[in-house]
């Protein structure tokens, strides 16, 4: 046994990570640790406020310190300088106003990132990101009780500046590329919706001044909304791109999410898929109807795809879906948003046809029960008998609706629902009349 045990181990132990593989793996894990630092100051912090010395730098310094020769010292100095150039801007990304590295973040990192912005559309997205960053910083400081009046005013000014710049970018896009302007508006509007919801839910945390600035920006966006709507093809491309991104994000976080969070997010994905499918159907039917109009053109599909005059329902559905995906992405990527707002507040659940039917049937039953309760208090036996007969008819319609539901006969369900609502309306009116005009319809329902 001992011999087999030790022999098999001997052979198995030949299987090991190569030096390069091992180093790469270690670096990836260290990078992960830096991107996901321990909360509550478990990460070693230098005496300078907020300056977090990354693990990679510490490891590097420790390794370099083994050199005792002059060459070693020079190499160490060189490596340290390079490490500093790389790690300082990286560490600065975590800084908040008042931190030593905050100026590196806003005066070095962000202007450098701005150089990579290549189009007016990207400029709007970039300004939106900067606005979100400033709001997040304000919330962070407020949570730690460090948001003084001066900092709040400076941050509010900065947020206003980025919001104005984004809005200016949208306005300028409207003249050159109206479709992109409409899509940028959806993105910017979604970000403002999320931030407004977070600030509303954390009243007093991030300062009223900042909440006011964000609300005003939202008002400006809503007031100046484009009259042009994006084409189906452009919207669909954006929706697909953002859905893929959202799925990837979800896959990355799903193992650390609670079962409830997972179910909530999965439900939103299912809702969005339904909306997209519905938009596709509407678009297909629009193409079929418009065939004769566009057949004269050389590229009928292109003509329809770039249609941008009046918003057809498929475009409205896709615009709303794009906004929802953006909000879902913000919800998944920003822990502050997750902690402050319920997903339902940002992206409400859309009932499936089945759920909608259940709700309608429940509503009908509740209204019928209210009527039954009222007729019990009525004195006129003839009227009571008349209403009871109508309620029996309602019962029979409810049964047929349930039977049609089991069979999946949509038409029969629709018919039964329409008859039930008509009958219920008549019964409620009758009850109201009997209550000598004192009761209102809503009271009857109660």
């Amino acid at each position: 046994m001992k011999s087999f045990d030790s022999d098999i181990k001997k052979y198995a132990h030949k299987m090991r990570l190569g030096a390069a593989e091992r180093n790469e793996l270690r670096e990836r894990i260290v990078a992960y640790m830096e991107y996901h630092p321990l909360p509550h100051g478990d990460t070693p912090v230098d005496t300078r406020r907020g300056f977090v010395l990354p693990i990679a730098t510490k490891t590097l310094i420790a390794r370099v310190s083994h050199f005792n020769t002059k060459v070693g010292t020079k190499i160490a100095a060189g490596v340290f300088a390079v490490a500093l150039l790389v790690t300082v801007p990286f560490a600065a990304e975590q800084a908040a106003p008042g931190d030593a590295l905050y100026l590196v973040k806003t005066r070095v990192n962000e202007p450098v990132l701005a150089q990579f912005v290549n189009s007016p559309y990207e400029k709007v997205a970039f300004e939106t990101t900067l606005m979100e960053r400033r709001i997040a910083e304000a919330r962070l400081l407020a949570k730690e009780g460090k948001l003084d009046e001066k900092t709040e005013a400076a941050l509010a000014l900065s947020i206003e500046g980025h919001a104005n710049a984004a809005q200016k970018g949208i306005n300028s896009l409207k003249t050159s590329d109206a479709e992109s302007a409409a899509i940028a508006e959806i993105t910017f509007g979604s970000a403002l919706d999320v931030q407004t919801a977070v600030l509303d839910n954390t009243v007093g945390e991030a300062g009223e001044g900042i909440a006011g600035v964000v609300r005003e920006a939202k008002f400006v966006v809503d007031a100046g909304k484009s009259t042009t709507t994006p084409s189906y093809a452009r919207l669909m491309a954006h929706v697909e791109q953002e859905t893929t991104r959202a799925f990837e994000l979800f896959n990355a976080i799903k193992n650390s999410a609670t079962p409830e969070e997972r179910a909530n997010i999965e439900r939103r994905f299912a809702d969005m898929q339904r909306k997209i499918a519905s938009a596709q159907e509407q678009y297909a039917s629009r193409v079929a109807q418009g065939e004769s109009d566009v057949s004269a053109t050389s590229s009928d599909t292109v003509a329809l795809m770039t249609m941008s005059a009046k918003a057809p329902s498929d475009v409205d559905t896709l615009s709303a879906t794009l906004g929802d995906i953006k909000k879902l992405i913000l919800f998944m990527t920003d822990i502050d948003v997750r902690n402050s707002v319920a997903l339902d507040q940002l992206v409400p659940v859309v009932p499936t046809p089945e759920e909608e039917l259940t709700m309608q049937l429940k509503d009908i039953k509740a209204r019928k029960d209210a009527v039954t309760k009222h007729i019990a208090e009525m004195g006129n036996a003839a009227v009571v008998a008349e209403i009871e007969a109508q309620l029996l008819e309602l019962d029979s319609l409810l049964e047929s609706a349930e039977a049609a539901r089991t069979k999946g006969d949509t038409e029969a369900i629709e018919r039964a629902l329409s008859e039930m609502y008509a009958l219920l309306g008549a019964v409620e009116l009758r009850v109201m009349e009997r209550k000598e005009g004192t009761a209102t319809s809503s009271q009857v329902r109660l």
Partner: protein
Amino acid sequence: MAKDENNLGSQEERFLKAFDEYADPLFRHAVYRLSDRERAIELVHDTFTKAWGYIRGGHEVDAYKPFLYKVLNNLVIDEYRKRKEVSLDELLAQEGTSEGDFDELHGGSIEELTFALDAKQASELLASMPPVYREVLVLRFVDGLGPKEISDLIEETENVVSVRLHRGLKLLRSHIEAAEERGNLKRRQWRTE
């Protein structure tokens, strides 16, 4: 559970020490379980990132070794599920034997079963074993864990672990014999050619 790391040093240092100590054993375990070197590296990476996520969540890891093996084992099981390999239930159903039947344990001890086995061949043929047996065989012979540790890790009783080890070893032996037989047959064919 006694802590296998001392409390000196930061969480990061202890975590990276655990990486230095267990990256190779975990990698070896994953390679033997999956027969895919690249995927094994990814699973070791995921094991450590998940463990870090656990620590970030405010939890403390008392003993890194069983904890990391547990995380990796779960990831390997997920990987099997993705690959849609045969489940344990299906396997048992095919064999028509319940794991509660321990009569076969009297058919020879693990020492007896491994006595005539060639370790080199066995290590090479582990990859051909069904996942349910490969799991316990790798944990026992490659990782060197005892039945109690394996039982804690895979959340089965020690008896079940012993039964699987017995069946796995018997199957391994039959694989080795079949491989030898194929080798002999080839040699005979070469001679006659």
